[in-house]
């Protein structure tokens, strides 16, 4: 094999210019492949992050809804039991009873979840519908009472805070973080007081300690955050009053199954992230398919380049092939020589492609990209995942192997007698 490689390399050196052109073709496609995939996936991660970072994997809550079995159904069931024909009833009169949207026994549920090995974090929430009183106008708003330290740690709360220090919210009483859109409408900044009215008519003054921007304008016009204790006080509810429990799992994919399990176990409503945000995966998949398709097409084009150059080389080297065969190299040896030749081109092109791809990724990464929707992003996002490098180099070797195989097979089938006698 060493001998065959040295023959392949010598043949390659003799056709250095063409070999370099072929390798540059591979290099170019690998560079584009790596850059494109890194950029696309950086973008995917960014866009997914808009939702994923802020969304719990499972949300437990208590939804008020009509009783699934109406009293008349019980009556009909008894009726049918004694042999009467079954019938359809149209009467739906019993409405939901006056019940608080709280989670029953929330502390015990949280305790149980904390002990579950699949769970990464459990954070309670208390969501309150409020009005902000601005002059004579009442603006609709939703105050999320949060465990600030948990939110910073698991939901990147601090990343989305464009003004103010998130720790002020954790320590201060009667402080609130307003959504950017809401703050603009109220023309209030940090340190200003805002008046809040709850659905039950309680009024409280809260101090603005930060401005929050999620990147989704509608959301920022309504949502506000406050310490969970502040919201409990606002609603005049006790310290164990929570409306939601947000769960983050170690493995995102377990969410749908676990949501069903928790729903049954604790008799609450549970929604998982996949159900709540079915659209984001579709978008990522489509973008991924496009970038892979472009990369593979580039590689196939490079493969044709190699195929052409090898074919030409074989026509020019018929004498060499004939004499190698006459002096004892068999068809398989000749095939290996030309395959090796192709693989060397692929390897050199592939590796330099990875290098240039990395440089290109750095370049893309340094292009400024400032958008109001994404406060933490200043340059184009790039995913430097080594996975794409491995895929790229594997593809490069595969393509060059296939592109080399056909000419190499042709070379191995050259009949030396025909060549030698033809002279």
């Amino acid at each position: 094999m060493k001998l065959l490689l040295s023959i392949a390399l010598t043949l390659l050196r003799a056709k250095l210019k063409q070999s370099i052109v072929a390798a540059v073709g591979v290099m170019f496609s690998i560079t584009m492949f790596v850059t494109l995939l890194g950029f696309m996936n950086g973008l995917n991660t960014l866009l997914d992050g808009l939702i994923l970072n802020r969304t719990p994997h499972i949300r437990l809550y208590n939804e008020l809804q009509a009783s699934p079995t109406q009293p008349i159904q019980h009556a009909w069931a008894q009726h049918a039991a004694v042999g009467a024909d079954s019938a359809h009833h149209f009467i739906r009169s019993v409405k939901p009873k006056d019940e608080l949207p709280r989670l029953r026994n929330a502390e015990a549920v949280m305790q149980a979840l904390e002990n579950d090995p699949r769970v990464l974090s459990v954070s309670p929430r208390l969501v309150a519908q409020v009005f902000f009183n601005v002059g004579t106008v009442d603006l609709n708003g939703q105050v999320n009472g949060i465990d600030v330290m948990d939110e910073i740690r698991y939901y990147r709360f601090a990343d989305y805070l464009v003004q103010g220090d998130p720790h002020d919210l954790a320590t201060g009483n009667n402080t609130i973080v307003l959504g950017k859109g809401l703050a603009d409408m109220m023309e209030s900044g940090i340190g200003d007081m805002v008046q809040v009215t709850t659905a039950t008519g309680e009024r409280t003054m809260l101090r603005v300690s930060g401005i929050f921007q999620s990147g989704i304008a509608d959301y920022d016009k309504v949502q506000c955050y406050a310490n969970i204790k502040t919201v409990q006080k606002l609603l005049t509810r006790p310290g164990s009053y929570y409306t939601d429990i947000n769960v983050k799992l170690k493995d995102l994919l377990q969410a749908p199954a676990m949501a069903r399990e928790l729903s049954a176990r604790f008799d609450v409503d549970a929604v998982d992230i996949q159900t709540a945000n079915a659209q984001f995966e579709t978008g990522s998949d489509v973008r991924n398919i496009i970038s892979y398709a472009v990369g593979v097409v580039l590689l196939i084009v490079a493969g044709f380049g190699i195929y052409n150059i090898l074919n030409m080389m074989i026509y020019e080297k018929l004498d060499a092939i004939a004499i190698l065969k006459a002096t004892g190299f068999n068809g398989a040896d000749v095939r290996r020589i030309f395959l090796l030749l192709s693989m060397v081109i692929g390897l050199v092109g592939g590796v330099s492609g990875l290098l240039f791809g990395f440089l290109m990724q750095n370049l893309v990464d340094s292009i400024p990209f400032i958008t109001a929707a994404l406060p933490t992003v200043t340059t184009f996002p790039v995913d430097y995942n080594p996975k794409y490098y491995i895929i790229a180099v594997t593809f490069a070797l595969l393509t060059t192997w296939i592109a080399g195989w056909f000419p190499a097979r042709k070379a191995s089938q050259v009949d030396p007698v025909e060549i030698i006698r033809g002279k």
Partner: protein
Amino acid sequence: MTSTEPITPNSDGSTAGDPAAPKTSAMSPALDAADSRGSNILEVRNVSKSFHDPVTVPVLKKVSLEVKRGEFVSITGKSGCGKSTLLYILSTMDTDYEGEVMIDAEPTRGLSGERLARIRNEKIGFVFQFHYLLPEFSVLKNVMLPGLKLGKHSAEEVEHRAMKRLRDLDMHEHAFKGANQLSGGQKQRVAIARSLINDPLIIMGDEPTGNLDSRNSGIVFDIFKSISAHHEQSLLVVTHDNDFASRTDRIIEMDDGKVIG
């Protein structure tokens, strides 16, 4: 080893007991050696071949011949008599024929391409009308390639042996030149050195002097003669040069696909 010493015979040949003796007579010691072993290096039985395109034309008709160890045989005949076709069948490169070809007592019919390549590598050396040196490689590397392929010796040893053969042919000064920098006669001498690298049992030549002037033809003939005389290696040379043929041990004359003498 010095450059004046003869090339060692192939691995299984243990006959070179008296390297000084053959110098007096070119012919008898080779035959003696062959007789002592009683073996034919090459044996051909009833070989026939036809070309089928576009009409079937028989080119070889039941050819039988044999070549003994150390024998220097030439095949002559008019062009188109089938002598080259016969040589390529004997070389194992052409496998499309009827009959039997035995090289070193091994029938070659029906062997795999890989096995045939091995036989060519180990037991047969080739010298063609055209030198077929690889221009990408140095002279030395050209000579070494079949030896490296055989893999019987280390690369250093193969290089040493290649140098020795080049020295025997007085080409050692050109060892590190490119194959394209040599003259026609020099190239042919390098091609001969290449054919000798694995100590083959038989060297086959297809018009090896066809492209050379008379002086270089003479040099090539002398080299062949000394190979046959000193090293117990057989030679089978196709030529239409009657002067060349007349100086060999035996002439096989062919006409119209048959051996006539």
